[in-house]
């Protein structure tokens, strides 16, 4: 359980509009157990479980009336869910879908079906593939032995089925600048045969397993009311997203373990506002909507 660090909230964020509906589809269950995972996913972490298919379908139907713009499927590893393929196909009839995956358990028959669903749909199906080092040793030190090779095999599969995965890199090698990292990944992917590589560098979230690997947030790493006085709250994910889990609706995919982040049983009740009192909000303050795709960036003028 994550406890708030501020007694008084830095700000209360009202949902402007439910643009993005996230599904924590496999909860905290993952076939990997990465050393930096901010919600400490693993094959054994049952804090959050799989969302039953009917519950996802209900939320999808509800989301249309709410005017949801995009859907995101995350976990854990979404492809461990027995219904992930039909659910993504269903969601693709209603709007664009992004799947956040480690790409280590992909199967050709699933990808064939998903590629077909995307072709039939008006909307994009984005794959965001997590990889944290541009060389095997660098990656495997964080994500586990052999994961570099397995993920790259998944990338190869995605390319073969006509997808253009976005390689999503957590900035675990802090001694390298984001620009350098970006370059190294682009180069590696080109050599690999991905001729138009898409790369997204993500800041570290110092929560969950990451607090053991490096450190947690420092006391001065926090947002205050003064800092937010001139800040455009639209930059924050909690301003335009909610996450459905098997245990109800949460404010954002980052604070799943926070004491008060559960906002309601269903979408309607989960739309209420949230008070920023957590260190992790500092990362959003610095970097904006880190979880969104580049095509949906919300930079202010």
């Amino acid at each position, binding site marked *: 359980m994550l406890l708030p660090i501020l007694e008084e909230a830095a700000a209360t964020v009202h949902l402007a509009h439910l643009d993005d509906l996230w599904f924590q589809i496999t909860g905290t269950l993952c076939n990997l157990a990465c050393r930096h995972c901010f919600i400490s996913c693993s094959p054994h972490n049952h804090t959050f479980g799989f969302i039953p298919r009917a519950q996802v379908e209900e939320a999808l139907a509800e989301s249309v009336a709410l005017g*949801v713009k995009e859907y995101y499927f995350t976990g854990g590893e979404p492809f461990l869910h027995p219904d992930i393929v039909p659910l993504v196909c269903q969601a693709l009839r209603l709007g664009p879908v992004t799947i956040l995956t480690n790409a280590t358990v992909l199967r050709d028959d699933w990808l064939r079906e998903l590629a077909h669903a995307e072709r039939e749909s*008006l909307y994009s199906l*984005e794959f965001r593939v997590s990889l944290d080092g541009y060389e095997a040793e660098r990656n495997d030190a964080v994500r586990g032995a052999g994961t570099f090779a397995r993920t790259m095999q998944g990338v190869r599969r995605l390319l073969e089925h006509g997808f253009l995965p976005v390689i999503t890199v957590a900035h675990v090698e802090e001694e390298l600048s984001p620009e350098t990292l*970006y370059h190294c990944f682009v180069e590696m992917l080109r050599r690999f045969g991905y001729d138009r590589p*898409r*790369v997204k560098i993500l800041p570290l979230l110092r929560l969950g397993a990451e607090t053991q690997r490096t450190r947690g947030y420092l006391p001065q790493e926090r947002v205050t009311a003064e800092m937010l006085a001139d800040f455009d709250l639209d930059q924050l994910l909690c301003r335009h997203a909610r996450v459905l889990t098997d245990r109800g609706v949460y404010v954002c995919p980052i604070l799943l373990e926070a004491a008060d982040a559960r906002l309601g049983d269903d979408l309607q009740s989960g739309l209420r506002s949230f008070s920023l009192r957590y260190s992790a909000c500092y990362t959003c303050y610095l970097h904006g909507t880190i979880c969104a795709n580049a095509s949906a960036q919300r930079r202010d*003028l």
Partner: protein
Amino acid sequence: MLRRIALFGGIYNNYLALEAALRDIRQRGVDGIYCLGDFGAFGPHPDRVFPLIWDYQVECIQGNYDQSLARDLPDCQCGYTDPRDNYFARISYEYTYQHTSPENRRWLGTLPTQRRLLLGRYRVLLCHGSPRKINEFLWESTTSTAFLQWLCATYEADVICATHTGIKWQRNLEAIQTSGRGSPLLGRTMTEACAHSKATTAKLFVNVGVLGRPENDGTPRVWYTILEADPELRVEFVPVEYDYRRLAREMRDEKLPEEFVETILTGWWTTCLEILPAKERKRGKF
């Protein structure tokens, strides 16, 4: 009463395409011409755009680029991740800023950010990115019909017209089926949909495209839009052929990046590709 109007956005200093489009529009005859913003960027000689806009009495709204220029901001604040994109964005912003007269920059600052008009019986809202944010990207493949319906309801419009992304598209907004196999009505053109149901409450979203650069389809042509209510809504995207070779020559003379020139000549985008969603990206070459 307005029945038939022409719309475009994203001139990006391409005064040659603008001139060709305006001539074509005049020939076809319309009740009004509207520019949805982003006068500068990319091309040569920004100040050559303004006299054309005034001569043809184009009604204009502001784009994000225009807002940056008018506010004397140091860059266009596109905020790309790829350092290469940032590099090119900076070059084109600095060039445009340096070559847009202070009077013209001030004029950009006087433009409204939205306009409302009545086209036949339809309430039309003109904006740059989206009704809620001047620099929001509404791509065809990442904007759900449910969201567009929400925008129409929230902003009390039957038709919303925007630009900003650089690629034209339109969607008829009918009721969505959430269960069963697919939603056969979604994504039809307006004409098809009107033939299908004589609904009087038709709703429509149109991204009117841009005149400044080709839309990543491998041809050098650019696009504007004719919107009609006669009495049913009808959208026509009109391709514009213009002297793009001359534009390319002038860009080279002005020492603008060769990457931009290549886009003008080939029709393929070479920079700022990361903002493209998967579907739009796959249609391009790079």
